C-alpha cells in the first residue's frame, strides 16, 4: 500500500516538473506542488505568474508540455477535463463561467447529471436535497428559479462554488480568485463555505487569491509562484519575510 507518490497519509495532489509553454513564454515552469489531504492551501503570486495556467493544467483544460500530475497517487495529466472531474476535482473560474440560460438550480444539477452518465446512480431526491442545501449555504436558494445570467458578479461566484460542490466524490476544489470583485458579505459567505466543507466533508482546497486577509484566515500554508516557478512555501509569517517573495512582489 505504500506507493512512492503519496497514498496513505501522502499527498492528495502532487505535481512534478509541471511545465506549460505558450510560444516562447514558459507560463508554468517545472512546478513541484504538493497539497495534503484535507488542506486548505493558498496559491499566490504577482499578476502573470502562472496561477491560472496551473489551475487550467490541474483541471485538464490545458495539456502539460512536460511533467506529471498525480491525484491520490494516480496520474491524471493525460485525462480529459470531465475524466478529472470524475475523479473528484472541481473548480471555479476567475471570471465566472456559468450556464447563463439555465436556472440557478439547473446549474448546480449539471455535475450530478453528468455523474449519472459515468454510471453513478444517486436517487434524484438525494441530488435535489444536496442541491438545495448547497444553494442555501451560499444564500442563493431564494433565486433558484432565476436564470444564471441574471445574477450579479458576487452571486455568480457563489453559484460557481455551489455547483462545484455538487461534484461527487469531491476530493479537491480548485478556486481561481474566488474573492475578486466580490462584496464583503459575499466574501464572508465564501470563506464560511470553504471552512465548513473542509471541516464537515474533508474537501481539500487550493485557493488562488490576491486577498491576503482572507488567505491568512483560511490557509495554514501558502505556496508562492513567480514567473511560473514555485519560489516559496510555508505559513503566512514565513513567506511574508521570505526574501524571494518580497523581491517578486516589490519588483526587482
Amino acid at each position: 500500500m505504500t506507493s512512492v507518490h503519496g497514498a496513505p497519509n501522502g499527498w492528495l495532489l502532487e505535481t512534478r516538473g509541471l511545465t506549460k509553454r505558450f510560444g516562447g513564454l514558459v507560463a508554468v515552469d517545472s512546478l513541484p506542488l504538493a497539497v495534503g489531504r484535507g488542506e486548505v492551501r493558498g496559491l499566490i503570486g504577482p499578476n502573470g505568474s502562472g496561477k491560472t495556467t496551473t489551475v487550467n493544467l490541474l483541471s485538464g483544460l490545458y495539456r502539460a508540455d512536460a511533467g506529471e500530475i498525480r491525484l491520490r497517487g494516480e496520474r491524471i495529466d493525460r485525462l480529459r477535463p470531465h475524466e478529472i472531474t470524475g475523479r473528484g476535482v472541481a473548480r471555479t473560474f476567475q471570471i465566472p463561467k456559468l450556464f447563463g440560460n439555465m436556472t440557478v438550480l439547473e446549474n448546480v444539477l449539471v455535475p450530478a447529471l453528468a455523474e449519472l452518465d459515468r454510471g453513478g446512480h444517486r436517487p434524484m431526491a438525494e441530488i435535489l436535497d444536496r442541491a438545495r442545501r448547497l444553494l442555501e449555504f451560499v444564500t442563493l436558494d431564494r433565486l433558484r428559479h432565476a436564470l444564471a445570467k441574471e445574477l450579479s458578479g458576487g452571486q455568480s461566484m457563489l453559484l460557481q462554488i455551489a455547483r462545484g460542490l455538487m461534484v461527487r466524490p469531491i476530493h479537491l476544489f480548485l478556486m481561481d480568485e474566488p474573492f475578486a470583485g466580490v462584496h464583503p458579505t459575499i466574501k464572508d459567505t465564501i470563506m464560511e463555505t470553504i471552512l465548513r466543507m473542509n471541516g464537515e466533508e474533508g474537501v481539500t482546497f487550493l485557493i488562488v487569491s490576491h486577498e491576503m486577509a482572507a488567505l491568512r484566515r483560511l490557509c495554514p500554508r501558502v505556496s508562492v509562484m513567480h514567473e511560473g516557478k514555485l519560489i516559496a512555501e510555508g505559513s503566512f509569517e514565513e513567506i511574508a519575510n521570505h526574501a524571494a517573495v518580497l523581491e517578486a512582489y516589490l519588483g526587482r
Partner: protein
Amino acid sequence: MLATSLYYVILAIGWNLLAGYTGQFSLAHHTFAAIGAYTSALLVQYARVPILVGIALGVVLAAAIGYGLGTLCLRMRAIYLALATWAFAESVRLLVTVEYGITRGDLGLAAPFLFGTPRSTPYYYLFLGLALGAMLAAWAIVDSRIGAYMRAIRDDEEAAAVMGVDTFKWKRFVFATSAVFAAVAGGFQGHYLGLLSPTPMKFNEMAMVVVMVIVGGLRTFPGPILGAVFIEVLSELLRAWGEVRMVLFALLVIVVARAYPAGLVGIFRSAGGYLAARVPALAPVLAPRRLRD
C-alpha cells in the same frame, strides 16, 4: 405544400437540436436529407430492396456519416465547424452531380412512390405522423439529462467539461441524431417526390432551414415548427418572386434576430404575457409557470 411544410418541420427540429440547443452550427443538415434520399432510391433501384428497407438503410448510413463527420469536426471552433460542414456538403453535392452514371446527376434519379401514387393526401398523413414523431423524439431528448448536457455545452463548453460532462461525446451524439432526423425526412420525401436531383443539396436549401429555425425561434421547442410552416407558406405565396425571396428571408432573419431573438415564439410569448396581464383569467393558459422543482 402541406407535406413539404411538414418535411421542413422535421429538418428544422433536427437542426435546432444541434444548433439551437447544443450551439453547433452545422451547414450540412440538408446534405443528410439528401444522403437519406439517394441511399434509399439507389438501393431500391439497383438492389431491389423494399422502399422502407431502403429508407432505413439511408438513415443508418446518415447516422454513421454524421458520427464520422462529428468525430472529425466537433473539436473545431464554431467558425471552422461551419466551414468544414459546408465543404462536406459541397463535396457530396459535387459527387452526386459528377457520378451521373450511377446517380443520373442533374437528369434526376427516379425514386418509386412509396404509396404507388403521386397523389399527395396519403403523404400528407405520413408526414404528419413523421413530424409528430420528430417532435416527440426531440422533446424526449431535450427533457432528459442529455438535454441538460446540450444546454450546458451551448452556454459554456469549458464549464460543462469541468463539471463532468463529456462534451465531445454528447456533441457527436446530437450531431448523429440530427443527421437521423434529416435522413428520415429526406428518405420519405424522395419517395414522395418521385425524382431526386442535386438541386436541394445546394446551400440555398440549408439557408432555408436556418431561416426557418431563426425566424421561428432558435433554441425554443415550438420555434422550428412554427418557423418551417410560416416560411414554407410564405415561400409558396411569393413563388413569383423567385430568388428574390431569399433576400427577403435574409432581411427577415436580421430583423427577427435583432428585435426578437426568440423569433415568432418570442413574439407570441410576449403577446400572451400582455394578454394575460389584461385578462387574468387567461393567465394559466397564456403564461404558464416556467419551472417545476
